[in-house]
Structures are given as structure tokens and as C-alpha cells.
């Protein structure tokens, strides 16, 4: 890609600087504006009666006592809302064969998971709404439930959607080369394992929340949205509530964490919008923590049987696996619940030079909460399968795991190329990343320490992962399959009369520092101090059209659009300056808020003078000059379906073989996310990602009873990592800019979560190796470790 070549060596560039975010003071003073902070005149509050059963027929609903409760304004059942909201179906045409049933915001006739909304109460306060929920009488007729994904395809399993004849939602097979022959070849050692990945969830500290308001005089629906994709939500509300798209405004102010959780269509939020329309007044719904655990999408829940064959030199000759995943009773709308399995099939083995690859994926319906895309979709599974088997094979043929990777990783000079599964890859640096990792962690010293510790009966382990991350998705991700999800993003840069820059963008902020990096890019490329840049994101009424922030696309796609817009504005401003100063535009530049001589930097005119002349005293300009002090540009990834990044990570753990506890002693992450815009922000994002990955590997699990009751719906029972358990995490970068854009940035938000579990799994198994046992189930809880040690 060609473009303004001087962008990165401009005198006042902020790209690459650890510039503090400008919006932190607001949050540090308690002036954030999260959805639950919104108070509107005449606002009422929603609470839900939710199904206590995994699968049950709704026989009757008696709301008479509830209606008489203080403060109650209205009560709605699924049938009531079915008249206002058309049902939705979570399928995508490019996932051939994927099926799901029509879904209503509130269950109609049958409830299919514990936690599904069944009755909605609207009252003058949340507390009064909850009081009324308590006295609603619902008669259920419990139905046989298919809770366990592993038996959901059995002939004897209850079929959740009768018309489908089975609980199979989707199936895909990838078969490349000749796996059978490769595994049977002489001198090949085959390792085989069954991996189990528990369900876990995002646990955003701010629960899901929506405030919806409706103004009948203009048929205008407004949603204050705690989420990542305002334009997607606009289309969904418009389509299913019958309000013209242009009359739906979705506003996303501060979002208290999202991680992919708040990017889906939740019945309780759609119901809040529908009821705002019916009551013609604002309705607030904020999930409490119990509701969050029951209804925020879950992720993972995969059972994988995987095989790898390696020859005597440690060269991988084939990978063969079968992935089965349970997704709940519906495929989530509109992104679908088949993407995680699809990613597992696409990504397993992608860092390695590999010829024979076979992977089968099956996605099944079950009577549990729905599964969908949570941070690092599919990556932790794909990386654990391949790198878990690599280290298992390395142990089997007695090769060091780092050496084993060196013999198999794609060479840094071998791109562009494709993975065995057909993913197009470019600009990656696996070899360099591994070398850097080994250096920063002081691998040899850790091995020596391990030797010493073993003599004392202390079991320490070191584990690695070499990984790829899917970032900067093109339309091939969702748009191609018919989802109303933009893959392109837009950015606008406007020079204001005072000489400040106002920018807006369709990518959104959930704490990553999106707004900060947009300001850094715009300030540097255009040429003003960053203090003079104001940023607007997260409002469909004011920002350019685009996809929002997900799949690690904010910096790579939104950032590039911003760069292009700022550059275009600069050229426009210099055209005006050239006329005013009677100079050639290409002899001028903009630096530090002023038009200057490009050669020697001498100031010719402050930007404020130029802007004021244009805006206030146009009479001083030649009448054939049409100054435009605003520019908008859009950007999408072409040529590649995704822009891959790579990384190498290592975990150092100590396993207490008496208690089963695993302590993480150290963690190192080398990331190549292309051009780094703000190292301070990227580093802490990588760390936050690693910590979520450690959570999935060691602690976090949505535990269900056999009959589909989630048992740990409090924060005391569902464990997320806390500060005391986490190590300091060392982050290092290799920068191989992506050639798909001028900016060259790739995503970084999900790598830690995608890679850390595999590194932890390998580290624990390295620690257990002398004891002749190993573990292949996550989270690796103390109980499970004691089990493989034969102690419980």
C-alpha cells in the first residue's frame, strides 16, 4: 500500500509514544458516564422472571398479584412482546449448513435454558420491579433436557428444536494432504490426547445495561448502549422493532469492559427497547451479577480429541483432531455461535509448516446458556491443541520444546504464504519472536532452577506457545454471510475556528484507549499538539458509519481511516494556505498548530488565523477558492480475509502436589502487532489479556449441574484472577508492520487471552512430567490436578 511516507518521521508525531490517555482524569474523578448512570425524566426500570428450568413448557403465567404491587407500571410475557418484536435467527450464509431457530426476546411457550427471560416487569424502581417479580406465578411443565454437549447428538437425546430432527447446528470438515498415510509412515511417533475446555464468561465489571427511550412525535428510538458495535445495534433494533434505521440512535458512552460479551443481541435488552416504544418513556435494564452469569454469553465448552505425528527429527508430519462444542439452545444473533469452532478449525497449527491437516468440528444445541464470541474466539483452544501436542511429542521423542518449535515454525522470510487450513499469512515473525522470548525469560537459568528445585521435591514447570491472532477482519468475517456488521470504518477530521482538531470515528472505546490512539494518530499526521484534539466516538448520530471495535480491529482499521482522514485534511488545509500565503502547497507543512515552511520550519501562519479567515472572513479569499476544512476517509482490509499477528509466550509455574494448587511464578509475552501506536497502552492490554487467559486456564468455569443449573453465579463462587495471584508479566514487541495499510498496525487485544492458556497447560505438564502424569482439562483446578496425581 502506498501513502504519505513521511508520516512516521514528522517532528510532532505521537505514534509510538507512551502518551498518557487524555480521558483518564475524567474516570479518575468519578465523572465517567456508564449506562446505569443515566437518569432520564419518567424513566422506569425492568426486572425479569427467568426460567428456573433448563427446558420446560410454560403452561400458564399469572401476573395478577404482581400487577397490584406498588410501583408496577406494566408486565409483559413473551407473547405480548412477540407482537412488537419480530423474531431473529442467528445464521450466516457463509457458514454453510448452520441452522438455528427463531428466537424471541422473551420465551414464548417453551423456555430452553435456565435464565431465559419469561416475564418482564416494569416499575418505578428496580427494587419495586424485583418485588413484583417475586409474586409472579408461572406454571412450568419440565421437559427432558439435553444439557451435556457430548450426548446431545445421541439418538436418545431430547431434540431441542423438533423440526431439525437432531441437535446438530453445524458441522465442518477440513482435510488437507494425507493425514492417515503421514501418521502411519515409518519412524513417526504419534501422540494423542483428549482436551477439555470448560465454559467461562467475560465477567465485565460493569454488568450489561441498556437505557432505551422512545419519542413518538418523531418515531425516534434512542438506546444508551453498553457495547462495542453501535451501528450493528441500530440495524438490529430497526429491523426487529420496525423503526426506520435513521430513527434509531445508539449511544455508547463509557463501557465498563466488554471483551466480546456486549456485542450480541440479548433478549432483555431488546425487550427494554420494545417496552420503551410501547410505553413511550425511558426504560432501564441493568443486569445484576446473578443475571450476568446466567445470561451473558459463555464461551469455550469444547471437547477435542487430537493427534499429532512427528518424525525422528521432530518434524510435525500431521495434525488430526475432532472438536465438539455446545452452544446453548440457539445460535446467538447476529454473529452466530459457530464462529468459535470455525476459528479452531482455521487456526490450529497455523504458526507451523505443515502439510497434512484434518479437522472436524461439530457445533451442537444444548439446554444451557448460549455460547458466542468472547475475547480470543477459538484461539485458546486452537493454540492449546497444537502447542499442547507439540510439547507432548517433544517429551515423547526427547527434544527440547524450544528446539522442537524452531524445527517447525514457518520461517520469517517465507511469507506471503498460507497455513495448512488455507489462511493467508503475511508479515509474521515467529522465529524472531521465539528467539526474543528465550532471551528475555533467561530460559537456561529457569531450566537450571527447575533441576535444583526437583531435587528438593519442588515441581516447577516451563511452558511455551507460539501463536497467531486474527485481527483487522475484512468483510469475509461477517458481512459476506449477511450480517449487518460493517467491516469498514470511517474517520472524520475537522479543523475548528480556534485551530483545534475535532475528530470522530466509528470505532468505539471500552477502555482499550481507542480514543487516545485516534488522537495520537490525528495529531501527528495533521500537525497539532495532542492537547488540541477532541475525540467523538460511540454515537450513531454523529460519527461516520462503521463496524465498531471487535476482533482487534480498532487500531488497525479505525486507526488507518483516521490516518487517511488527517492526511487528507492536511492537504486541504495546505491548499488553502498556499493561496493565502501565495506559495506552493508542497513547500508548506503543518507543525505544532501552524502552517510552516517545509524546509526550515519557519512559522508562516497559525492554523487559527487560517481557519478564522475561512470561517469568518471568506470575503478575503479569492471567490474561486472553495476551502474544505473537514475530511472523511474510510478504510477496509482488502486482499486478506484477516491480518494475522503472531506472538510467543512462556509461563513459569510451581505446582504444589499436595494441594494441587498452581502458582504462576512468571509470564513473558513477545508480541508482533505491527506498528505499535502507544506501547504503554498495548503492554497493559497484553497483560490484561494474559490475565484473562490465566483465569481460563486455572480458575474460571461456569459449573453446571447435570440438569442444566448453573451452580456458581456469584463472584465469590466464580473465580476470576485477583492481583495477589498474578505475577508481573514481561512484554516485549517485535514490529513487523502490516503491508495492508500505511499505518501498518495490527490488533493486540486478544493475543494474551488466546495464548496464555496453552503456555500454562504446557508449564503445568512440564512440572508434572517427572511424576509421569499430565492434565488436559481446563481450568486446571487443584482438584483436577490431584486427580491426575491419583490423590483424589
Amino acid at each position, binding site marked *: 500500500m502506498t501513502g504519505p511516507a513521511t508520516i512516521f518521521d514528522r517532528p510532532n508525531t505521537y505514534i509510538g509514544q507512551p502518551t498518557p490517555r487524555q480521558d483518564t482524569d475524567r474516570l479518575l474523578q468519578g465523572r465517567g458516564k456508564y449506562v446505569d448512570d443515566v437518569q432520564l425524566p419518567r424513566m422506569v426500570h425492568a426486572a425479569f422472571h427467568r426460567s428456573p428450568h433448563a427446558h420446560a413448557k410454560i403452561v400458564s403465567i399469572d401476573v395478577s398479584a404482581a400487577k397490584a404491587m406498588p410501583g408496577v407500571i406494566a408486565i409483559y410475557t413473551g407473547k405480548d412482546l412477540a407482537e412488537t418484536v419480530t423474531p431473529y435467527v442467528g445464521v450466516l450464509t457463509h457458514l454453510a449448513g448452520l441452522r438455528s431457530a427463531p428466537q424471541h426476546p422473551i420465551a414464548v411457550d417453551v423456555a430452553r435454558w435456565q435464565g431465559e427471560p419469561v416475564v418482564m416487569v416494569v416499575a418505578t424502581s428496580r427494587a419495586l420491579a424485583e418485588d413484583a417479580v417475586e409474586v409472579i406465578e408461572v406454571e412450568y411443565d419440565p421437559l427432558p433436557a439435553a444439557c451435556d454437549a457430548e450426548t446431545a447428538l445421541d439418538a436418545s437425546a431430547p431434540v431441542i428444536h423438533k423440526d431439525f430432527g437432531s441437535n446438530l447446528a453445524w458441522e465442518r470438515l477440513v482435510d488437507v494432504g494425507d493425514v492417515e498415510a503421514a501418521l502411519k509412515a515409518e519412524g513417526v511417533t504419534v501422540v494423542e490426547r483428549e482436551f477439555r475446555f470448560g465454559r467461562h464468561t467475560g465477567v465485565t465489571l460493569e454488568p450489561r445495561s441498556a437505557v432505551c427511550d422512545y419519542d413518538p412525535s418523531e418515531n425516534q428510538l434512542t438506546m444508551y448502549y453498553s457495547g462495542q458495535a453501535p451501528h450493528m445495534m441500530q440495524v438490529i433494533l430497526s429491523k426487529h422493532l420496525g423503526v426506520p434505521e435513521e430513527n434509531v440512535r445508539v449511544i455508547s458512552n463509557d463501557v465498563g469492559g466488554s471483551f466480546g460479551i456486549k456485542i450480541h443481541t440479548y433478549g432483555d435488552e431488546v425487550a427494554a427497547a420494545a417496552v420503551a416504544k410501547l410505553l413511550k418513556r425511558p426504560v432501564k435494564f441493568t443486569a445484576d451479577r446473578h443475571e450476568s452469569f446466567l445470561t451473558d454469553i459463555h464461551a469455550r465448552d469444547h471437547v477435542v480429541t487430537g493427534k499429532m505425528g512427528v518424525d525422528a527429527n521432530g518434524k510435525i508430519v500431521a495434525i488430526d483432531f475432532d472438536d465438539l462444542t455446545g452452544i446453548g439452545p440457539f445460535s446467538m444473533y447476529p454473529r452466530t455461535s459457530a464462529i468459535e469452532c470455525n476459528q479452531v478449525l482455521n487456526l490450529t497449527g497455523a504458526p507451523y509448516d505443515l502439510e497434512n491437516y484434518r479437522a472436524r468440528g461439530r457445533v451442537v444445541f444444548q439446554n444451557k446458556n448460549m455460547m458466542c464470541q468472547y475475547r480470543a474466539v477459538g484461539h485458546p483452544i486452537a493454540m492449546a491443541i497444537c502447542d499442547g501436542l507439540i510439547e507432548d511429542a517433544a517429551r515423547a521423542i526427547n527434544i527440547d520444546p524450544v528446539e522442537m518449535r524452531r524445527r517447525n515454525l514457518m520461517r520469517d522470510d517465507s511469507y506471503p504464504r498460507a497455513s495448512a487450513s488455507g489462511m493467508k499469512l503475511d508479515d509474521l515473525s515467529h522465529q524472531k519472536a521465539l528467539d526474543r522470548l528465550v532471551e528475555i525469560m533467561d530460559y537456561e537459568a529457569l531450566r537450571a532452577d527447575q533441576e535444583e528445585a526437583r531435587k528438593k521435591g519442588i515441581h516447577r514447570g516451563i511452558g511455551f506457545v507460539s501463536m497467531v491472532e486474527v485481527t483487522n477482519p475484512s468483510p469475509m468475517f461477517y458481512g459476506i454471510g449477511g450480517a449487518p456488521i460493517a467491516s469498514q470504518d470511517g474517520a472524520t477530521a475537522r479543523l475548528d475556528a480556534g485551530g483545534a482538531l475535532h475528530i470522530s470515528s466509528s470505532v468505539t472505546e471500552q477502555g482499550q484507549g481507542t480514543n487516545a490512539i485516534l488522537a495520537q494518530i490525528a495529531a501527528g499526521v495533521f500537525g497539532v499538539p495532542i492537547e488540541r484534539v477532541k475525540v467523538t466516538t460511540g454515537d450513531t448520530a454523529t460519527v461516520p458509519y462503521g463496524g465498531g471495535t471487535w476482533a482487534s480491529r480498532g487500531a488497525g482499521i479505525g486507526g488507518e481511516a483516521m490516518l487517511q482522514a488527517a492526511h487528507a485534511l492536511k492537504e486541504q488545509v495546505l491548499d488553502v494556505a498556499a493561496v493565502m500565503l501565495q506559495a506552493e502547497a508542497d513547500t508548506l507543512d503543518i507543525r505544532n498548530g501552524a502552517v510552516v515552511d517545509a524546509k526550515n520550519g519557519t512559522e508562516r501562519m497559525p492554523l487559527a488565523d487560517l481557519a478564522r479567515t475561512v470561517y469568518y472572513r471568506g470575503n478575503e479569499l479569492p471567490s474561486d477558492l472553495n476551502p474544505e476544512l473537514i475530511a472523511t476517509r474510510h478504510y477496509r482490509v482488502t486482499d486478506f480475509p484477516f491480518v494475522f499477528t503472531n506472538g510467543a509466550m512462556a509461563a513459569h509455574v510451581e505446582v504444589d502436589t499436595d494441594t494441587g494448587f498452581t502458582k504462576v511464578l512468571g509470564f513473558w509475552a513477545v508480541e508482533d502487532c505491527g506498528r505499535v501506536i502507544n506501547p504503554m497502552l498495548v503492554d497493559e492490554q497484553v497483560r490484561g489479556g*494474559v490475565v484473562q487467559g490465566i483465569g481460563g486456564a486455572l480458575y474460571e468455569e461456569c459449573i453446571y449441574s447435570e440438569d442444566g443449573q448453573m451452580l456458581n453465579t456469584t463472584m465469590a463462587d466464580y473465580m476470576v484472577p485477583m492481583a495477589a495471584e498474578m505475577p508481573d508479566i514481561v512484554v516485549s514487541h517485535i514490529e513487523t508492520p502490516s503491508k495492508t495499510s500505511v499505518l501498518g498496525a495490527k490488533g493486540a487485544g486478544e493475543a494474551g487471552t488466546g495464548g496464555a492458556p496453552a503456555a500454562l497447560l504446557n508449564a503445568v505438564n512440564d512440572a508434572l512430567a517427572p511424576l509421569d502424569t499430565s492434565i488436559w482439562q481446563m481450568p486446571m483446578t487443584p482438584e483436577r490436578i490431584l486427580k491426575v496425581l491419583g490423590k483424589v
Partner: protein
Amino acid sequence: MTQTQSIQLTVNGEPVNASVPVRMNLVDFLRQELGLTGSHVGCEHGVCGACTIEVDGAPIRGCLMLAVQANGATVTTVEGLADTDRADALKAAFRDRNALQCGFCTPGMLTSALSYVESGGPADRTAIREHISGNYCRCTGYQAIVDAICDVIGKEAKS
């Protein structure tokens, strides 16, 4: 259930008289009745620490205390901290270290960190990690928060 009681307390230096439902917890009272939305609610069962505020000088969980129990108390929220210079050094360190992402945990985290710093806690990473382990942060890796607290203690030691 909807019985009310009147209370008098001081919130961020201002006297407050109110009649509150006896079942209302303190953080809901601050958020819903006084509009002090800087204190956040993450779990309502005393685990996440997002609602941490100062009552009579000590950090407490605003979701575990009823508003009526705060009768006669002196309450300081993150908005109150912003009006004085008590937390200025910590706030600057949080900004400079990027010790917050979404900011939802931040008011509670800041209150916990302030109690550690003001009680003379050492710049010991393990001790700091222990101290803030009642405050969940789902975005950062906690490291930047520990860095920020260490910075402040280090600077105070120097001056």
C-alpha cells in the same frame, strides 16, 4: 418492605438529610438519590470492590452497608476525593502508568490504594497486590496499578 427512615450524614463535606427506604444500600443511595454515580456497582454482594467508598475514614463496601447505617457518618466518594488534593498524586500516577482501562473498577481501586498509601504501606509489590486483592479489575493485568502505587510511595519517601 418500603418502610423509610430519615438519616443525616455528611457526604463529601456537605450535610445531607434524607428519607430512605430502610432496605436501600449505601451505594444505591449515593448513586440514585444523590446522583453521585462515581461509585460503581459490580456485584452487590461484597466481592468485587467496585463500590468501595470511605465511611468515617475507612474504606468499606458500599453495597454491604445500608444507607440507614450511615446515619451520622462522614462519607467520602470518588467525587469527594476529586475536590481535595488527597488523592492527586495517586491519580497522576494512575494516569501516567495507564493503571485503568475501562475505569469501572477505578473509583474503588483508588479508594483502596489511598488507604494503603495513607496508612504508610511500603512499596512492596507483594504487599500491594495483597492489599488490592479485594478490588477486581477485569481489564488491566493489575501490574500498572501496582506500578502506580509504588511510584507514589517512592516519591513520598524521597520528599
